[in-house]
Every structure is written in structure tokens, then in C-alpha cells.
């Protein structure tokens, strides 16, 4: 790692101290030491143990040199300042104490930075997250580029952790209590201009276009030049370190000085967190505790609280599950099928409904020309409007300009015929879920598209091989199962048949990645993976409704288990007609395993037009502009007609929850057992990102690991005795129950 001595005053040309493996190089410009961080083993800078050690050495070297009057801290990585702490470093720890020690190490280092006798300017371009932001916050001054890649934030909460290197202590002082809570509790990314407004950075630097060098390279150089200028300015006092505060700021500071006001804020924030998390996530509450400790009991207590809570959180199953999801997400953002032979440049989408238009929206701004085809002008126009609204919302939020919206929209063509399909590389159909209609469009498409054209079907339940049966080129047929709303739901489930070629798969994955999706690739079968897991759970939901459990109570029980929306609302969102349709198909395929509720309930509802949210009526009544949902009395009537008695031995609140969850989980395991899934990780990712399986449980497989397969099997046996074989635990689950050393995750 770093070595060599400083030679200040050598002039503009930087002198670097050579060690090819070094992660931090020092150059000296006049009397400013520029430290360039560049982790030799990775594409991004992370605060690993060796990196921290080296930074400490480098800083000591700088401080020991009397000729250096100020410091600029910058990264040599394109698009990354410091992306955060090294997650492996935390995972390697076996006890809370070890993690607490890590946190204290970081706290100490940043304290030294904060108390530096000479000013340190953090020059930020690219991601400045977690520990990276905490590092920057400890510096005396921060300059950031306005590049779109520049984001600041403390995403620790999303990993079930907290900012453990002084973040919970410094942020409230820097941006005020409300903003600090917002940043730490949401973990969201903050763009540079917003960061400046909040007071997180002092100055912004514009990204440059191409000049005498590549624009990215020159932008970082320019950032460094500007930061060096500020560093000198701070030393000669022409640049003040504190911003003059506006009247609002002064008022806020005054209010925060009143203990009663602070108490109220803690209370409100805690209440809001409890509302949103149902108390299932420990990290947000710990963050509040740490901030409170720092402000009420002094910083020593605050730092101690922070490091101890950090250690405790790292050992929680919630954090482990969330970290696992994060790692799975990273893995599912890679194309394990390699680079496709041809890039999809022209895409056609059949059907401009919610799905079709949603797919168009996530594709058209990625440099892909999109044809959106429908059979009627009304449908087409609605679809085009949906896409426009999506981009216009971004204009309103100022994340794109109106001009970017217009140029993006110019890549979208709406049409009713097949003209231009001779240039199309891929067709995604999102037409009605009916095999004969799917066959009809498949044949029409194959008649007009070039031989290399891929036919992807966005079905949620029909087996792909049945659809492909009508194809002349079954190797080009693949399933791409998107989730609604497409622009919000991150998951894409790709389904391959025995005949689907590897290149077709690679191409579909490549397009999905371009669309920003997290992708799982599964084998063909009725319902694939996601729909298959959902179906038995919905069957059980119906049963519970028939047994007289109130929809509102069911929603409460499912959300308190950790689902993001109640199961009954979910059914309304999915659409009762869709549920009925899928239910029938799935029952045909799986028989008694889908037993539970009576399908007649939903078919009757569909007949009456209660198809769910889109119709305004399902189990609930949806009124525009009204947030409160009322029960649909007519649906209640139908349920009464099909009423069944609830066996008391399996109808406690907890039983209700586990009856739903166990059927979901068992089916997920069955998918792995049958080879539909290629690994548990993809199963967890699919369940969490596609179906809203509680993230803190990490997915069905991690849930089985943590909950205990034997305990789950016991519960299922109890239900099996009452209801029959829809609760029979699958072989894989039984194996895990018998041998407690068997785990899906080591």
C-alpha cells in the first residue's frame, strides 16, 4: 500500500508516489495535498479494512508534513467516490462486539478527519454512499459534481443497519433533525442539487462536455482543480466554512433548540416508522435512538450508542435477510447467459394495455425504438398517454427536461397494423390471456418478422411451450413475465422452454437489464415460479374469506406479517378476473394442491363485474379521490352465500397467517425441487421483488432457514389433518425438517 515521502511545492504537475497496488495516492499541487482514492481490486471504492488502514497512513503522512496547508480528497474511479463500507467485512464478523469494534474504528478515524488541523475538501463525483458519505461529512468542505451519477445517501437502513461511522451524529447537526431523519430512515439517493439545498454539500461543479479529453476524465480533473481552488481559498480565508443561514434555517434551529419540540419530533417519527414497518424492522428505530442519544446526552453517548446498535443490528436476522437480498439483487443484475449475438434495437409490443404500455415506458428511454401496436385506436391512445404521463411525471420532478421527454417519446410509434415489423428484433406480446389469441398473434407476427426476431410472451400463467407449439421457430420463443405496474415493479421473470435457445435467453435478459429489471430465469411450467407460489396462497385466502374472516382483518394480519399490501387488496389489484382465470388454469395443472376456496366465489364476482380495482369494485369499493376503502357489500353477500364454518383449531390469528404463508413457501420449495428454479437465491428475489414477500424475512427459502423447516412442517401437519393434502409438505421441505443441518444458505 501507500509509501514514499511528500515533496510539496513542486508546482502544478502532480508528483505521485508510486506503488502500483496502492489504494490512495498523494499528489501535491502547490501547498495542497490531493489524495486520490483508487481501490486496486475493484471497480468501486469501498471502505474495507486495508483501505481504512491505508487512508490512516496517508493522512498521518499528510499531517506530519508541515508544508501542506490543505487537503483535497477525490476518487480516481469513474462514477464512484466511495460506494460505502465493505459489506463482506461486516458479514465476516461473528459477534456484535466485533462489528461494534469496526464501527468504533471508523468513528475514530473520521473524528481525526473532523479535527484535522488543516482543512480537508471532499471532491465528490459519482456515488457517495454509506461510509463514503460519512467520510465526506467528516471533512471540512464538500464539493460535488452535478453529474447524474453523483448521488449521496445513507442506504444502510435498507440493509437493516445504520450509519455506523458517525453518520447518526453528524447528519442532524449538518442538515437539521427532520432532513437527517428523512435521509437516514428512507436511505434514498440524493442528487447533488438537492444535497446542496439541504446543506449536505457546499458547492456544485458542472459536468463538462468533450474538450481536449474525454468528458468524464476532464470533469474529474476540473472537479479537482476547483476543489484545490476552494482548499486554498479556505486557507486564505476567502472561502467561508459556514454558510450564512436564511431566516427559515434560523427559525428551524431555534425550534430544534427547544427540548419539547425535539421530543415531539422523535415521537412523530417513531410513530411514522411504526406505521410503515409494523415494528418488523429494527434498524429505523435504532437510528432514532442513536440520534436521540447524541442530541440529548451528548456526543460521547451518541457515538457509543451508534457503535453498539450497529453491532447489534448486524447480528439480527432482519439485517442478514436484507443483506442477502442485496447480494441476490446484485447477482440478478448480471447476464449469466453471456452477450447476445444481436442487440435488440427495434422492439415491438403487442397490446397497449397497462402491461404493454408499461413495458414500452421502461424501454423507450434506453435507446431502443419501440412500436406499440394495438387493435383499436382507443386502446392505443390510452397506452400512449400512459407512457407520456410516465415521462411527464419525471419532467415535473425535474429528473429530465421536457426536451428529453419529447426526444424519448419520438422513439415510440403507435400503430394498429404490422408495418415496420420487418425491422423488429424482438416482439413482446401483452395481449389477452387466451391460448387461441396468443397463437393467432404468434402466427401473424412470424409472418411479418425477420427470422432472427424473438417472440416473447408476457403471460402470467400459460405455459410457454403451449404457446410455442404454434411457432415455426420455437427456439426464438421465450416468456417474459413483467409485473404491474411495470415502471415500479423491479422484477422480471424470464421463462425458457426446452427448445428456447441460449442466445434467445441472453437477448431477453440483456433487454430486461437495459430496462432496469432484476431478473430471475426459470423453467417453463404452469404458473412458472411466481404465479405458482401466489396461486395456492390466493386459494387459501378465498377459503379464509369463505370461513368468515373479514377482508379488513385479513389485510391487517397479512400486513402485520410483513406483506407490503394486504392480501385481499392484492387480489383486487391483480384483478379478480385474472385471479379466476389463473386459478382455473392452475387447478387444471395441479389438482388438489390448489384446493381451498371455492372458485365459484370469484367467477360469480366476475359475472357481477366486481373485477377489482380497475373496475372500481372488488372485495372493496374504490372511489376516485377517496383514500379510505369500504367493503363492497355485494361481494360480502356472495361470500355469505358460499359461507363455510371455520374449524376453531386452525383459525387463530397466527394460524390464519401461517396457513397463507406455508402454502406459499411450500410451493416455492416445490419449484426448486422440480427444477423450475435453478437456485434458492432467485426464488427469494422473485418472491420479494415480484410478490412482495416480506423483505425482512429475505424470501421463502431464507424464511425456512430462519424459522426452521421442522417447525413449519409441524404447523402444516396440523392444517393437513383438517384440510387435506394441499398442506402436505413437499419432499424438499421434509428433508430439511429431518436434518436441521440442511440449509438453503450457508
Amino acid at each position, binding site marked *: 500500500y501507500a509509501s514514499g515521502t511528500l515533496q510539496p511545492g513542486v508546482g502544478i504537475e502532480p508528483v505521485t508516489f508510486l506503488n502500483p497496488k496502492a489504494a490512495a495516492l498523494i499528489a501535491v499541487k502547490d501547498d495542497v495535498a490531493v489524495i486520490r482514492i483508487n481501490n486496486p481490486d475493484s471497480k468501486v471504492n469501498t471502505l474495507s479494512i486495508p483501505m481504512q488502514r491505508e487512508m490512516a497512513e496517508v493522512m498521518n503522512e499528510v499531517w506530519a508534513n508541515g508544508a501542506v496547508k490543505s487537503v483535497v480528497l477525490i476518487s480516481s474511479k469513474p462514477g464512484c467516490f466511495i460506494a460505502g463500507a465493505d459489506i463482506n467485512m461486516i458479514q465476516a464478523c461473528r459477534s456484535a462486539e466485533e462489528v461494534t469494534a469496526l464501527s468504533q474504528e471508523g468513528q475514530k478515524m473520521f473524528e481525526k478527519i473532523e479535527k484535522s488541523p488543516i482543512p480537508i475538501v471532499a471532491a465528490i463525483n459519482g456515488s457517495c454512499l454509506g461510509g463514503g458519505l460519512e467520510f465526506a461529512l467528516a471533512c471540512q468542505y464538500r464539493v460535488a459534481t452535478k453529474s447524474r451519477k453523483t448521488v449521496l445517501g445513507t442506504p444502510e437502513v435498507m440493509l437493516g443497519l445504520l450509519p455506523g461511522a458517525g453518520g447518526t451524529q453528524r447528519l442532524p447537526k449538518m442538515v437539521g433533525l427532520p432532513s437527517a431523519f428523512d435521509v437516514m430512515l428512507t436511505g434514498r439517493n440524493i442528487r447533488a442539487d438537492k444535497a446542496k439545498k439541504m446543506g449536505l454539500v457546499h458547492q456544485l*461543479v458542472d*459536468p*463538462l462536455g468533450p*474538450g*481536449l479529453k474525454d468528458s468524464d476524465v*476532464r470533469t474529474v480533473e476540473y472537479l479537482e482543480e476547483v476543489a484545490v*481552488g476552494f482548499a486554498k481559498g479556505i486557507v486564505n480565508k476567502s*472561502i467561508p466554512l459556514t454558510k450564512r443561514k436564511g431566516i427559515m434555517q434560523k427559525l428551524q434551529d431555534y425550534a430544534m433548540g427547544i427540548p419539547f419540540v425535539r421530543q415531539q419530533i422523535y415521537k412523530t417519527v417513531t410513530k411514522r416508522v411504526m406505521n410503515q414497518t409494523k415494528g418488523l424492522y429494527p434498524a429505523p428505530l435504532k437510528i432514532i435512538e442513536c440520534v436521540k442519544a447524541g442530541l440529548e446526552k451528548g456526543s460521547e453517548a451518541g457515538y457509543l450508542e451508534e457503535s453498539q446498535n450497529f453491532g447489534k443490528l448486524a447480528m439480527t436476522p432482519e439485517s442478514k435477510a436484507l443483506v442477502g437480498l442485496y447480494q441476490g439483487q446484485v447477482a440478478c443484475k448480471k447476464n449469466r447467459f453471456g452477450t447476445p449475438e444481436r442487440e435488440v434495437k427495434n422492439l415491438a409490443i403487442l397490446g397497449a394495455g397497462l402491461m404493454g404500455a408499461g413495458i414500452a415506458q421502461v424501454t423507450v428511454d434506453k435507446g431502443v425504438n419501440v412500436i406499440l401496436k394495438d387493435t383499436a385506436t382507443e386502446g392505443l391512445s390510452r397506452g400512449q398517454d400512459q407512457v407520456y404521463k410516465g415521462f411527464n411525471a419525471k419532467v415535473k420532478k425535474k429528473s429530465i427536461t421536457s*426536451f428529453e421527454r419529447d426526444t424519448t417519446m419520438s422513439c415510440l410509434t403507435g400503430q394498429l397494423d404490422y408495418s415496420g415489423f420487418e425491422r423488429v428484433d424482438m416482439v413482446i406480446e401483452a395481449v389477452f390471456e387466451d391460448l387461441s389469441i396468443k397463437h393467432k398473434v404468434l402466427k401473424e407476427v412470424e409472418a411479418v418478422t425477420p427470422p432472427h426476431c424473438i417472440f416473447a410472451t408476457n403471460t402470467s400463467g400459460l405455459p410457454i411451450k403451449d404457446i410455442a407449439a404454434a411457432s415455426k421457430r420455437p427456439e426464438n420463443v421465450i416468456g417474459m413475465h413483467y409485473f404491474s405496474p411495470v415502471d415500479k415493479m423491479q422484477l422480471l421473470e424470464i421463462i425458457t422452454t426446452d427448445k428456447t435457445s441460449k442466445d434467445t435467453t441472453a437477448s431477453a435478459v440483456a433487454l430486461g437489464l437495459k430496462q432496469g429489471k432484476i431478473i430471475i430465469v426459470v423453467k417453463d411450467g404452469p404458473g412458472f415460479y411466481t404465479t405458482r407460489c401466489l396461486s395456492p396462497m390466493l386459494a387459501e385466502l378465498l377459503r379464509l374469506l369463505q370461513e368468515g374472516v373479514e377482508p379488513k382483518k385479513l389485510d391487517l394480519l397479512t400486513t402485520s406479517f410483513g406483506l407490503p399490501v394486504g392480501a385481499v387488496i392484492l387480489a383486487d389489484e391483480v384483478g379478480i378476473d385474472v385471479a379466476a382465470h389463473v386459478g382455473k388454469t392452475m387447478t387444471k395443472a395441479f389438482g388438489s394442491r390448489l384446493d381451498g376456496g371455492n372458485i365459484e366465489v370469484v367467477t360469480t364476482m366476475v359475472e357481477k363485474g366486481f373485477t377489482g380495482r380497475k373496475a372500481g369494485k372488488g372485495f372493496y369499493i374504490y372511489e376516485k379521490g377517496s383514500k379510505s376503502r369500504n367493503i363492497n357489500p355485494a361481494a360480502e353477500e356472495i361470500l355469505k352465500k358460499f359461507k363455510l364454518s371455520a374449524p376453531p383449531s386452525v383459525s387463530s390469528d397466527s394460524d390464519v397467517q401461517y396457513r397463507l404463508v406455508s402454502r406459499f413457501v411450500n410451493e416455492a420449495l416445490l419449484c426448486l425441487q422440480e427444477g423450475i428454479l435453478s437456485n434458492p437465491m432467485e426464488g427469494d428475489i422473485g418472491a420479494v421483488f415480484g410478490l412482495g414477500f416480506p423483505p425482512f424475512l429475505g424470501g421463502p427459502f431464507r424464511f425456512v432457514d430462519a424459522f426452521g423447516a421442522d417447525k413449519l412442517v409441524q404447523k402444516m401437519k396440523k392444517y393437513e389433518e383438517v384440510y387435506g393434502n394441499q398442506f402436505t409438505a413437499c419432499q424438499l421441505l421434509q428433508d430439511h425438517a429431518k436434518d436441521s443441518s440442511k440449509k438453503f444458505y450457508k
Partner: protein
Amino acid sequence: INIVLVEGVRTPFLLSGTIYNDFMAHDLARAALLGLLNKTSLPKDAVDYIVYGTVIQEVKTSNVAREAALGAGISEKIPAHTVTMACISANQAITTAVGLIAAGQCDVVVAGGVETMSDMPIRHSRKMRKTMLTLNKAKTLSQRLTLLSKIRLGYLTPELPALTEFSTNETMGHSADRLTAAFGVSRREQDEFAFRSHSLAKKAQDAGLLSDVLSVNVPGKGIVSKDNGIRPSSMEQLEKLKPVFIKPHGTITPASSSFLTDGASAVLLMSEEKALAMGYKPKAYLRDFVFVSQDPKDQLLLGPSYATPEVLEKSGITLDDIDVFEFHEGQILANLKAMDSDWFAQTCMGRKSKVGVLPIEKLNLWGGSLSLGHPFGATGARLVTAAVNRLKKEGGQYALVAACAAGGQVVFDL
């Protein structure tokens, strides 16, 4: 057909909000037009066509060329139209005239440009305009009152004409500052160039070289016959100025950016045959021109770099053959660096090697947009006239005129 420039004139270029304060754009345009006719003794009925360029349009006189012509007593039978292309609007007017003559449509065309920043169309907000327009259609009192009651305080915020690119929402000055940074143009280089521009302009003004400047009688304010933005100062003073666009670390100051200017310009173009037949001695041939376009965000002001090699190749001459360079002083230093860079030529222009070093000793020797001012619509014709007059004075053969415009386009010729 050979197309010749017979004469070129301009009103004095004045700082906005000074003596031309009460003029509308067509008043200035008329002054230039009348001045040209007087100077050349051209009979009013000899003009076949009039084209003017302008950028920020006065809505009352959207075809400002026509209003100027009518006011100048030119027959109402002579057609006129107005073009717009940001800072090269007058160049566009001139090349339009060239096209009309080359196509055999006309023999004698006046082309020019005009801009006033002393008066600008400041509008009601869109919401207010909508309310007012709906109000027109409202029939009953109660309908009107309902509409009026919907007016909110925010509706009254006026809309100023933006000096920003519509597509990128970035002001030109901001873009220019980024451009200088991208090319590593230092603050000192820019101060030196500004100092040079003002010094040369002052010298030229004192020596009476700016013979294209007309004397204009401004009612109630007397006769003006000199540009009033030329302010030679010292490097020390320039160094003290603060950046105007990117604060506090930008490099462009009020001195290194052109001030808001009012003014108009005009040139008389003819086919060579016609000019000779009418007894004129043409000052120059207009040989060739090109327009180019680039990325409006990062290359907004790099037009000259792209256009120069193209127009040279088109006319079959080289940079060395050029005796007179008149370039619009909008980030000229970045352009000089761009033309001198192999990386830029290869990466951005798709050329094998750099364009070359532009000889600064032949560039803008009588001042430029930084010192003389830059009335957007009028600058193009000033550049052409200055180039022609310098050619005559310096005894050169070829002149090259180039300017950059919002949207990034450029020119030309001789």
C-alpha cells in the same frame, strides 16, 4: 453567377438601455436600411428583396424586415422577410440573399440584422394568458366573474424571454463557462483576450477604420455615430472582476462575455453583372458558406471549429491562404484550442487530424463582439462588412468569417 458585396453599414452598436432606449427594433433596422441606401445612392425602386435576421422578436413586428422597408419608403411592392437562427441570424439573411440571387430570383437584395435588448416582449404567465383568452369567450357576467375569481397571485408573475437554450434549459453564459473549462481555457487567457479586443477596437475607432458605422439621429437625443461599449482598461482591473455565470469558481466575467447590445446592420448584395451595369465597384465576392450543427449542450459554441475546415475544403483553399479572419467573439479561445487538438478532431469531428493553428495576428484586428457589442441578430452582417473592409485596407485576398450560434451553427465565405 458571381455574387458581390457592394457595401455594408451598421448603426452604432450601443449598450442596451442607453440611447436607443425608446427605439423599437424596426426603427433600428430602418436606420440601417436608409443608411445603406444613402451611402450607395441606390434608388429605392432598385431593390428587389429585403431579408433581415433577428433573434428576440417583437410580436407586433414579427416580420421586422417588412416594417423596416415600409418605414424606409421602399415600395410596398417589394417583398421582405425575416429569418432567425440565433447569433448567426444575419449570416442566415445574407446566405438567403445569396440563394435568391444565385437562383435568378433577384439581382439586388438588402440583407441585414437587428436586435434591441432595451425592449423585450415580457409576457403574462401561461396561466394568466389562458384565463384572459377564456375571458374573451365568456358571455355572461357570472361566467366572467367565475373566471376572474380563479386568478391567483402566482398568475401575475411575468415571463421573461429566456436567454436559455430551450432544449437544455441552460443559459448561454453557463454553457460557455463549462466549455472554457472543458478546453482548459484559463481565466488569464480570457482576460487577456478581452483586453486585446477592447484595445484593438479602441485603436480602430480612433483611426477611423470603422467606416461602416453610420450616424443615426435619435429623436430628442441627438446624433450618435460611435459605438459606446468600447472600454479599454487594464489587466489589473479585469482581474478584479467576479465570475458572472458560474459562481464562485467560474472563469467568465463581464469583460470576457459580450454585453447586451442594441443595433442593426445591413449589406447590399448583387449579381456581379448587375453591380457593374449599375456602375458599382464591388468590394468583394461572396464565395462559399456552410452551416453546421452540434450537440446543444456540450458543443453549443463550437460551430466555428466544425465549419472552418469544411468551408475551406469546399472552396479548395487552406487556412494559410486566408488573410483576414473575422470570428464572432463567443468563446473563440475554446474554438482555437479545439481546432488545434488532434483528440478533438478525431473524437468529435471525425477528422484524421486537427484543423490547425489559427493565426491570431490575422484575427479580429478591429475589435470584436466583446468590445463592439453583440446585438444578436445584427452581428453576422457586421462580421462580413468588417472582413471586407479589412481585406481592402490590408490588401488581402481571402477572408473567412465564422460565428457560433445557439443550436451551434456556423458560416462562411469570401
